[in-house]
């Protein structure tokens, strides 16, 4: 099974969710730990739409992060419809939008981090915002994992 965490820039909430999924973040990580996650910085425009593999979880599911860019939900539709055209089972590809987990701190930090003089405080503010979102992101990841856990029958997966 493939799990794709998406957000607008393929950065903060998607990377944090993927890191939680893969067990890279503890229950109370420091700001530095969060900011040091791979692919923490936003993707370039030319990378929008292409998922990046971050790793494989303990159940063998591959975990990806994806930047949607200005195309928004169309990216997920295109990804999923291509998957289905290939004859793959719909439940084998889980795409999770993490934009709802962006908060004011993360948005403001992302805005500031684009200014060279304010990049460092901006990045810390982003990490602070993500740390505040971690409980919600953890619940989201737990829900995803309950859908992707091996041994569940199809009916249970569909309920999730």
């Amino acid at each position, binding site marked *: 099974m*493939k799990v794709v965490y998406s957000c607008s820039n393929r950065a903060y909430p998607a990377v944090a969710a993927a890191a939680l999924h893969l067990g890279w973040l503890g229950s109370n990580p420091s700001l530095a730990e969060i900011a040091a996650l791979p692919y923490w910085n936003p993707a370039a425009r*030319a990378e*929008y*739409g*292409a*998922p990046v593999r971050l790793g494989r979880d303990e159940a063998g599911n591959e975990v*990806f992060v994806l930047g*949607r*860019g*200005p*195309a928004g*939900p*169309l*990216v*997920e*539709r*295109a*990804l*999923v*419809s*291509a*998957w289905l*055209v*290939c*004859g*793959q089972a719909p439940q084998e*590809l889980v795409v999770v939008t993490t934009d709802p987990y962006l908060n004011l701190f993360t948005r403001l930090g992302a805005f500031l981090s684009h200014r060279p003089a304010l990049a460092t405080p901006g990045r810390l503010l982003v990490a602070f915002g993500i740390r505040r979102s971690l409980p919600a992101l953890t619940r989201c990841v737990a829900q995803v994992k309950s859908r992707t856990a091996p041994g569940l029958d199809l009916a249970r997966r569909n309920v999730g």
Partner: protein
Amino acid sequence: MHIIYHCYGGAHSSVVAAAIHLGLLPLPDASTAAVQALPYFDLHTSRDLGRLFYYGTDARGHAVFILGRARAAAILERAVRAGFSLAGKKQALLFVDTLPAVNWWMRIGGFLSRRLQWVGLGRPLVTYGTLHALPKLATLVRETLEQL
């Protein structure tokens, strides 16, 4: 190879190009009724943007699809390619942008019919525009076929 004809809404020029590719439209004298009777013509809504729709398989075995991609052609091309790649399919894909063949009648008619849902006004306009765009669309398809 899979051929994906794409335009803004996936409702007009990409549909007609796919139909020409598959020989579903009698050229050069296609009628209004023939254009309007094409599968998916002037049907897709904003909820269909980003989705691949299978249109048929040509005589050489190439599957033909249509795609509405709004203003995000490059991003959606990457996403479609990624979907095939995630599925483990090393499928050759050819993306053909049909928007250069679109004229103002089609833009205005398509906007009225699809965006505003004024189908009674928009559909005749977009069909009129499509009939005028047929030579360009036929050329586009011929160039596509030459690439295969």
